[in-house]
């Protein structure tokens, strides 16, 4: 199959690669770029384990073609921490025990990251709704809600500091 050349900024680094048009973004990230943080859980957009951020939107990369990202900016879980300092959502998940097996976590973190841009001061109900595209089989979500609340508080403190 003829390949197409695409240029994508991934975690701030420009990547120029020739890909098959049918290549899914999740496979491009995991297999071409060796960014294995995002996972494949369902292949049907239900579980959200593959969630990444594209041009300021949460996207499930298992149903998104790599060629659709030509010229886009993609942020994955590997790009969340800044020079070794954890992002507030990463800190929140750690401190509030918001993860167990860790498989959904990269997608959860990327969704939480974008959600808190969309709604910096959410209620619990808003968090539950805002995170409802991401499934977790381990935690029962209660501590994920706390983790997002932790991150929201920290981001607000940082913003006003």
């Amino acid at each position, binding site marked *: 199959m003829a390949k197409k050349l695409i240029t994508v900024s991934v975690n701030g680094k420009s990547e120029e690669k020739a890909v098959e048009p049918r290549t899914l973004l999740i496979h491009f990230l995991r297999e071409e770029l060796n*960014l294995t943080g995002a996972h494949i859980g369902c292949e049907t957009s239900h579980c959200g384990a593959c969630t990444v951020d594209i041009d300021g939107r949460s996207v499930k990369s298992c149903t998104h073609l790599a060629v659709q990202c030509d010229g886009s900016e993609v942020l994955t879980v590997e790009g969340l921490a800044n020079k070794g300092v954890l992002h507030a959502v990463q800190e929140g998940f750690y401190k509030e025990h918001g993860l167990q097996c860790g498989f959904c976590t990269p997608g959860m973190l990327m969704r939480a990251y974008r959600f808190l841009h969309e709604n910096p001061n959410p209620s619990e109900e808003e968090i539950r709704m805002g*995170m409802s595209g991401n499934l977790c089989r381990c935690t029962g979500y209660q501590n994920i809600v706390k983790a997002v609340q932790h991150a929201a508080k920290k981001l607000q403190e940082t913003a006003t500091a």
Partner: protein
Amino acid sequence: MNAPVQTAEAREIALAGMGVSRLRKEDARFIQGKGNYVDDIKMPGMLHMDIVRSPLAHARIKKIHKEAALAIPGVHAVLTADDLKPLKLHWMPTLAGDVAAVLADEKVHFQMQEVAIVIADDRYIAADAVEAVEVEYEELPVVVDPYAALQPDAPVIREDLAGKTSGAHGPREHHNHIFTWDAGDKAAADAAFANAPVTVSQHMYYPRVHPCPLETCGCVASFDPVRGDLTTYITSQAPHVVRTVVSLLSGIPESKVRIVSPDIGGGFGNKVGVYPGYVCAIVASIVLGRPVKWVEDRVENISTTAFARDYHMDGELAATPDGKITALRVNVVADHGAFDACADPTKFPAGMFHIVSGSYDIPAAHCSVKGVYTNKAPGGVAYRCSFRVTEAVYLVERMVDVLAQKLGMDKAEIRAKNFIKKEQFPYTSAFGFEYDSGDYHTALKKVLDAVDYPALRAEQAAKRADPNSPTLMGIGLVTFTEVVGAGPSKMCDILGVGMFDSCEIRIHPTGSAIARMGTITQGQGHQTTYAQIIATELGIPSEVIQVEEGDTSTAPYGLGTYGSRSTPVAGAAIALAARKIHAKARKIAAHMLEVNENDLDWEVDRFKVKGDDSKFKTMADVAWQAYHQPPAGMEPGLEAVHYYDPPNFTFPFGIYLCVVDIDRATGETKIRRFYALDDCGTRINPMIIEGQIHGGLTEGFAVAMGQQMPFDAQGNLMGNTLMDYFLPTAVETPKWETDHTVTPSPHHPIGAKGVAESPHVGSIPTFTSAVVDAFAHLGVTHMDMPHNAFRVWKQLKATGQNL
């Protein structure tokens, strides 16, 4: 030179040992995308495997056309049962004493059964090749109902068993019959029923469900043709058992087989078995001399790898008119699918189902479980439970509710009346289990007080009296006991290997440590909690204790993580390995301090000379001495291995209460409140325990309220994607309230019983109890799961309650 003097309390806090809500050591990699799951593993020259599966549930294979697939550039091989026959690998033994087809041999027995494999350069080409393989089938009559399967003229599902009148668990009475297993005393139970003033009976179906961890099953198999050894990275809850099975199947000596369970994205019982996909990937790697990766997709996961439950149960209770239970009888028809691939200890084809007498002092009891073949996928694993304990707890808790309704008693009162009393422990049940410890009355009172039970009942009575109430209110109550921590090797084995578990601890010269275990975490946080046990036992800060599991080349042999056995079995192995080290350390400390061993006291992290606080040696001091200059005649080093064969199971228990409000117009059930009190004995890390309970309750909620694997008459699975199979989101999931009591296990070295499965086991009948309770005043005694809105709405219609 002198460090500041720290109090014993301060030093204990610094250890972060048992009882502390220590943050998790494993999180750093997971929150930064640096986990290492099977699908993350890449090896040089690695090929990809995909599987051709049957669209039909029962059919003869007439011909398989490989040519078109083989013609696709990048396809290396297409293998069928005929290719595996010369290797004698087209069939494999199951953990339940049956055989299962690795690739369908002449016929397919269930929809999505493995028919052929393709190996290609990448997963896209492999998927293309799967499409290009053409299989000609001749359809056969399908049987999906286990009662129909036992009819005399039912289709023969297992032609390979023709003429076999007995199986691994006794005589077979029909061509689709697998076993009949009995426990308890039938004569005593029958006699009690014959004379009973009150009896109740109830039929109930526990639907076929799937554990559905977020990571599907898969492996990367790598056979090195030069060295003759095989390394396989695999999603397994029991890597050592896999190594033994692979060695037996392949003929490669066990010393040349290395099985590694890396990070596991949830298991819940789905990752206990050995699946055809694993075997095929290993064979492909041996045949091609290159690493081969296979990772199933979600449809394959739900359709083929290890379902749970599918029990058709009839329960009966006999009682006195004032509600004292005198006998229990249970009959089960168990749908095992096309191959008996249940994952149970060898001697127990229905697992620990005989915990079915529950938390109650029932003098006479009998149960009988009949295993049946149908044209469905094999399995029957313990979905977040210990070997059919979930089914047993569901049955007895439903029956106690049914009896309470018949007698007009409150469901809390009837339970308190029949509980095994605190002073009766250790208690031997009518089925022969010796319950280690419990205090059910105290726990029940704590829950009833916490929720103000009388006020809830008063509110419910007021709602029932109001014909215009928009909701029906139900109160569910369950008081369950589990049997976990399999198990004593005199009773429990898998493939003949006793169900012990193991730990090896090495203290390094500078006082840090590594522990290697026969178990494997899948989210339970072993790297955190195991280190806490060692910290408390040996006075080494948990921060400098490394815990490793899952690599059979480095870890001691163990039976793995399922059935809540990690803490009861491996946790005990840790404590006892640590105590061996402690005993040696005491000798070294005595030598260093030039006193007799008996003149030393142990305090947090050090041996002190009795009566003189200034003379002491810390464990770190001792470690250095052990490598630097051990006492004359003593072996250098400071390490120990312990294989722990538990003397008994452990028996965690809990009291769960749930309040539901059912919308009379839509049938939707709102979980208003769920209060879960668990007693898992000694608590190692309260934060992790609470997290495990949240997760288990949520999985229980999923099972009770929405999960099922429905089949049509042709054997088509009607819901095998996450579109149809219910995994709750954060929106549906209730908020959980947790509580605990602590009744240590008397026979466990640290008194711990195991916890992560209790919330799944206990919550499911609690939801049913609550939903049925909403209709109890209308004479409804039971409703089968799942309690989705449509099914509850039908009940509203049937009872004239629909608005």
